[in-house]
């Protein structure tokens, strides 16, 4: 029997937590790769996410002016290409000159890039929220009818199905890339030990470019999925995601992309499940403090196991 506890828990806490976790996971991949390979915390990563969602919205809008109704997923394809180009340009012009400088300089450079990109987006599209997708997301009726016929009614809106399936597909491709292709193994090797990679004859600069391509693509996907989920876009949306994405990268272990995926899912679920009324009637932690959950997990990990779940790099 489908009791009300499970109905409420699965539909209103677990699935949204999983969706949020997918978004964090995709964003954290780029963070952990740049952290592992270039050894700096890239503050501008959230802005790549945010810019991609604006670009997707713009592509969908332009297409509609030609009478073409595009799903945001289609609009995200050219947007993700632009995001990758943006990430590569930012690296070439603003990060590469600091490669051999103390880490703090490149971190500050990325902080500056964060402000520059955000300001540019505000100049182009304005500082106000924009509706990304109109209307109320209704649960998918096929899944609802089918599951209610077997007594487990699942209420999953189409946007969540897209996000979950999209993330699974990207993860499968990502897994193939990292475990079965030369460039992917090279990325893991450089992330594991950049000095050894250099003296093994690996062209580290090419690996760095590949990292921006992969990180930029995953950031674009995360940005578009976030916009689909919340149904609006605004210029600080990337920045708000930064803390939980850093928490996910640290939880999984810096430089461990599969760890970042696990970390993202754990943080997303932890944030949502912390608002469930586990004790009494009210939420255990008020939803307003959700981001505090990610922060707490990050602090606890840094104190007790700084190498993360998958034994990443310790700085």
């Amino acid at each position, binding site marked *: 029997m489908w009791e009300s506890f499970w109905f409420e828990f699965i539909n209103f806490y677990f699935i949204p937590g999983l969706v949020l976790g997918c978004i964090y996971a995709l964003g954290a991949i780029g963070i952990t790769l740049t952290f592992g390979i270039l050894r700096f915390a890239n503050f501008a990563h959230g802005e790549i996410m945010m810019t991609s969602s604006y670009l997707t919205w713009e592509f969908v809008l332009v297409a509609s002016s030609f009478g073409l109704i595009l799903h945001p997923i289609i609009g995200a394809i050219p947007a993700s290409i632009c995001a990758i180009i943006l990430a590569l340009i930012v690296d070439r012009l603003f990060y590469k000159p600091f490669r051999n400088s103390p880490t703090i300089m490149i971190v500050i450079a990325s902080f500056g890039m964060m402000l520059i990109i955000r300001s540019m987006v505000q100049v182009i599209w304005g500082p106000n929220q924009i509706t990304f997708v109109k209307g109320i997301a209704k649960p998918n009726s096929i899944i609802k009818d089918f599951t209610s016929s077997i007594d487990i009614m699942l209420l999953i809106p189409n946007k969540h199905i897209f996000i979950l399936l999209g993330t699974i597909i990207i993860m499968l491709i990502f897994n193939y890339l990292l475990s079965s292709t030369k460039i992917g193994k090279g990325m893991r090797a450089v992330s594991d030990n950049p000095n*050894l990679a250099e003296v093994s004859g690996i062209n580290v600069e090419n690996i760095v470019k590949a990292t921006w391509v992969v990180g930029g693509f995953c950031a674009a996907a995360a940005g578009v999925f976030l916009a689909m989920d919340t149904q609006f876009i605004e210029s600080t949306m990337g920045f708000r995601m930064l803390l939980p994405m850093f928490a996910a990268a640290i939880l999984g272990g810096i430089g461990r992309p599969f760890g970042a995926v696990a970390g993202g899912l754990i943080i997303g679920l932890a944030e949502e499940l912390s608002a469930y009324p586990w004790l009494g009637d009210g939420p255990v932690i008020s939803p307003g403090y959700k981001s505090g959950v990610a922060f707490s997990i990050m602090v606890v990990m840094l104190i007790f196991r700084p190498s993360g779940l998958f034994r990443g790099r310790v700085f």
Partner: protein
Amino acid sequence: MNSDKILSISNLIAGYGETEILHNVSIEVHKNEIVSIIGPNGAGKSTILKAILGTLDIKSGEIFLLEKKITGIKPSDIVRKGVGYVPQTDNVFVSLSVHENLEMGAWTIETNLKEKFEELYNLFPDLKDKRNQLAGQLSGGQRQMVAMAKALILNAEVLLLDEPTAGLSPKYRGEIFATIQRINKSGLPVLMVEQNAKQALQISHRGYVLVDGSNRYTGTGQDLSSDPDVARMFLGSRG
């Protein structure tokens, strides 16, 4: 003699930034030789290997590989030109499998990889069964084998080993020295830096004793081992 010179370092002055560590060091490695560099801690032994690899600042002096100058070239290009290098620590990719480690060593090779891998697994039979295991899960001695195999795959002209037996149990130490001899017998010259000086000199054709960043003694492995001054100062009773 000149024609069989594989690696030669002449009058090298090098260090990190302003700090000079090597003052006028000269070393040669000839065809089919095992050459050891021994000396007290802080003598600059490992620094020589880093200078050959191009990972530190060279102030003056030249390094030649097969009579071609390699000073001032990027480390990854020096490796591609035929310098195999095994660092003392962190010498394997711990989160990659043994086989993936070898693949990373073979980064610049496109053809005949399968045969190359087979050759290496024959040279290091212990690694064959562990090819899918993460290198981080191996013992110190096994990691050293992976590191050596990884360095060998590029058809190196010379193999540089930085304290290959540091921190290993006597059993593994013997095994590593035996492996080094086996590698050398296959036709590859070896230049190694070693703390276990006595054992290293026993298997070396020639050796250099380095003190305070300068050459102090040079001779065959046997001569150095039996030199009373060298024995008293650097070999001690340890071995």
